[in-house]
């Protein structure tokens, strides 16, 4: 059903970029917000979401890292992607809502940053075997 080489990972986590850049297409950006915006652009441009853009249950103002996988619509796919569009738009709305509650901290200690990277990468790690089926 899926071809891993066609999947696109949008991320700002350099661990994810380094691990998967030779397996599939990885777009590496600077911030959590940029990842969501790029994902939204892709979803509006005939890509389905493969992973939930808020995976991990970490609030958007807590983790600095976010990785999302999308997949291009098949040529004969007539789906208007509306479910994916609603989901990613909702995630952006929730992101801004949490920034109003309290902005994301600019800097954590190195070991905390590392833990955030580990957890974000694990979301992608757990999905890769599902796509290789």
């Amino acid at each position, binding site marked *: 059903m899926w071809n891993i080489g066609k999947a696109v990972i949008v991320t700002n986590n350099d661990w994810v970029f380094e691990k998967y850049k030779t397996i599939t297409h990885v777009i590496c950006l600077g911030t959590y917000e940029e990842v969501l915006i790029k994902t939204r652009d892709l979803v509006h441009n005939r890509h389905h979401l493969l992973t939930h853009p808020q995976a991990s*249950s970490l609030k958007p103002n807590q983790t600095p890292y976010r990785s999302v996988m999308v997949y291009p619509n098949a040529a004969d796919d007539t789906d208007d992607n509306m479910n994916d569009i609603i989901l990613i738009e909702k995630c952006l709305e929730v992101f801004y809502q949490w920034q109003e509650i309290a902005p994301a901290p600019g800097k954590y200690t190195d070991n*905390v940053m590392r833990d955030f990277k580990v957890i974000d990468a694990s979301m992608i790690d757990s999905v890769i075997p599902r796509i290789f089926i």
Partner: protein
Amino acid sequence: MRLELGKIEIRDIQFADRTYIGDHILYVNREEIEKLVLEDDKLLSCRLDIARPNEAVRITPVKDVIEPRVKVSGGGEIFPGVIGKVSPPVGEGRTHALDGCCVVTVGRIVGFQEGIIDMSGPAADYCPFSKTVNLCVVIEPKEGLETHVYERSGRLAGLKVAAFLGEAGRHVKPDTVEVYETKPVFKQAAEFPDLPKVGYVHMLQSQGLLHDTYYYGVDAKQFVPTFMYPTEIMDGAIVSGNCVAPCDKVTTYHHLHNPVIDECYKRHGKEINFMGVILTNENVFLADKERHSDMVAKLAEWMELDGVLITEEGYGNPDTDLMMNCRKVERKGTKVVLITDEFPGKDGKSQSLADTCEEATALASCGQGNMTLHFPAMEKIIGMQDYIESQIGGWAGCMNEDGSFEAEIQIIIASTIANGFNTLAAKGY
């Protein structure tokens, strides 16, 4: 399945030269427990401490909380597939619980997700483990371990200690014995034909590394939705392995004491016919979400349920599973009530869930996690306060020099737990 749950009331824990229960006191041989924990060569040190209600004590960072239990008869062993043998299954016969005491595993797993238990002061009102006598197992990993390797060591340490202490209750006469029974689906349906058939859709946290739950030892993201007898859960067939936000972390204690199961059994045969548990998970891969919510709806239809209660664990991604389950179960003709906590901002005005659907018309709220609270300095800290500012609910600069701090109640273990094992709620006016 029919389970007799015998509760042995424990009023205090004291260190002694052997481990046993006498006159409602759990005596613990400290060296024996420390040796048991340090059988794991990934752990560098283990220190035991006791925290009692009303003491000026703060426990943090808390990984898991577990009630000691033992299988006395009926087959199977406590925490099957993790500590006990995976087969035969649990949920039948007799189990003894050490009621009123807990094992609390303490130590940094990830710097931002473990929470706080205050044994007194304002935060104690929000935490069920401020009212139990707690044996704190403070562990420290060896240098250089991967986080998930250490998480496993911490998880197993707590479960091992709880199973070991549970053995002390094997031959003790319980103070109370409660009996729970759920029959096979057709027999159960026939038992109370005039009562509405009610099921419980139990969503387990299963999003990935450090966000896992285990079912008979299986990582919950690897199974497809299935049926469970509720009594299996009372015998430790589900254990926590996750490090999500402290406020809605479903600890292993909460699995043993699932309030939805408890309440459904109280009304079983009177107001409802409690048919059992549909177990499902919360995955990252959207195809899994669609597939598993379809299966949940199919099971609800197959059991001919009139109504289900659904609980989740976590925020964001699980809200999507919650809504998918709600929508699909409702469309099969089964009424749904959701139970969850909320994050609507400090003023309570923002939308409180990350996803919604039009079928979600009945929801019981377990309170909101964004409220802030002053946490006074405590005389004693079990663990360390080094991570308060990066723990969920804290923020840079929230810590004061005297050891007090301000934080959202998200930082308190189980303060807004999304299955209702707490005291917070929301009311409509």
